[in-house]
C-alpha cells in the first residue's frame, strides 16, 4: 500500500487502440448535449 499515492482507477487508454474503434457507440451529440461536445462520458457499446 502506497503511503502518499493511491491508485484509484486505470483504463490503459494508451493501449486502448488496437482492435478498438468499432464505431457502434452513440454519437455524442445525439445523447443530450446538442451544444457542448463531451465524449468521455459516452458508454462503450462493447461494455
Amino acid at each position: 500500500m502506497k503511503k502518499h499515492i493511491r491508485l484509484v482507477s486505470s483504463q490503459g487508454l494508451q493501449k486502448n487502440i488496437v482492435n478498438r474503434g468499432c464505431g457502434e457507440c452513440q454519437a455524442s451529440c445525439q445523447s443530450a448535449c446538442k451544444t457542448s461536445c463531451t465524449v468521455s462520458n459516452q458508454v462503450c457499446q462493447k461494455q
Partner: protein
Amino acid sequence: MRQPGKEKLIHKFAYRGTHILLDINSGTVFEIDAVADAVLDHYGRRSKAEIIAYYKNRYAAGELAAAWEEIADLERQGLLFTADALAGTYNPAGEPTVKALCLHVAHDCNLRCRYCFADAGEYMGKREIMPLSVAKAAVDFVLASSRERKFIEIDFFGGEPLLNMDVVKATVDYARTKARGCGKEFRFTLTTNGVLLTEAVRNYLKDNGISVVLSLDGRPEVNDRMRVFPGGQGSYATILPNIRAMVQLLNNEGYYVRGTYTRWNTDFASDVVHLVDLGFKHISVEPVVAEAAAPYALTPELLPVLAQEYERLADIYLERFEAGDPFDFFHFNINSESGPCLPKRLTGCGAGHEYLAVTPAGDLYPCHQFVGRAEYRIGSVFTGIERPELAQVFRQAHIYNKPQCRECWARFYCSGGCHANAAAFGGSLLAPYELACALQKKRIECALYIDVRKRAAAGDK
C-alpha cells in the same frame, strides 16, 4: 539534471482536501496527499535532494523522500508519465462512415425561446416541415452510408419535431422495415420542448422505444424568462405536467431533462436541484452558446462564479449519492475505468463525417448547428455527400491538429470540443472556443473528483 516535459504528461488539482492526479495519456487516476502533490511540482525538473531542500521548512525530509520514491516507482512501472500512444499524429483510416442523423423534421416551433440558436426554428431560412419523401430518402442515405455499422441513430429534431408527428411515425416504421432487410438496427431519440407531448404522443414514444430529450431549464422563473410562447408568456406551467407524465411513463429511464443556463442563472445548481426535487433522475443543464453581445450571454468575467457553481453542484451530487438518492448529471458521467476507447476520443462528436444534420428540404450539414450556413452545406439526401473534401476537413479537425488541444490535459475527455462553437467564435474548426474549454475543464475536474469519491465509498463498504 533538469529534464523538462514530465509536467506536461500529468494534470493535478485539489478540491475539498482531495488531491487528484491524472496521468493524461493513460487516463489513470490517483489520489495523492499534499506531500506528493508538492513533490510533483518539481519532479523531473529538480533532483530528489533539491526537492527535499526546497520544502525543508514545510515537510519532513523522510516524508518527501518517501513520496519521491513512490512517484519514481510508479514511473518505473509505466503507470505514470505515460507517453502518447500515437506520438501526436492521427490519420483516420478508411472512408467516412455516416451512421447518425439529426433529422430536422420541422423548421418551425411553437415556442420563441430567447436564446434559440435555431432562430425560433427557422434556421435563418423559412418555416418548413419535412415531407415524408425527404425523411425516407434520409433513411436510405444513412443505410447506404453506414457501411458495416450495425447501429444507426436518428434524432428527431427541429424546431419542434412534434409539429410533424405523422412524419416521425412514418419514418420510424420505414426505417425499421428497411433495417430488418439488411441486418441493421435503428436507435431513435427525439428532442422536444414538451408543449405537444400529449398522452397519445407519450404512449407512442414509449411503445416504440424512442429515447427523449425534454427541454426544461429549471426553476419556473428561470425557465419562463427564456422559454416563452410567441405571445411572451412562460412555458413552465404548460410543459411541466407533460414532461413529468412522460418520465413517469418511462419509469424514470431512457430520457434526459435538458436545460440551458445563461448569465441570468449563474446559480444553475439550484435549477438542477429543482429538477431533482421534481423527481427527475437524468439531467443535463448546459451553458448557453451565444454571441458576447447578447444580454444573456456567458462572458469570461463570469468564469470564477461558474466554476464555483460546478463545485457546488458536485457537492450536492455527492450529498444525494451518499444519502442513497442519487441522480445523474450528464457532464459528471465520467467513469475513469471504463470510458470510451481511444479511437472514439479521437473521433470526437463525428460531425461532418459520422454525424450529419438533414434539413426539411433534404440538405446535409455537418451538424444541426451549421444548418443554414451555406458554406457548410455538404450534400443532400438525394445526391449524397457532394463535398467529400469538407467531410475530410471535419475528420481532420481532431485534437492533434488543434494547437490549443495538443497539449491540453483535457483533450481525451472533450475530444477537442464543439466544431460549431470553434467555427463561430474562433473563426476556424481548429480554434476551440475558449470559454467553453474553461467550463469543460472545470466540469471534468468535478467529474473526476466525484468518481474518486464514489470509488472510495465503494471501497469502504
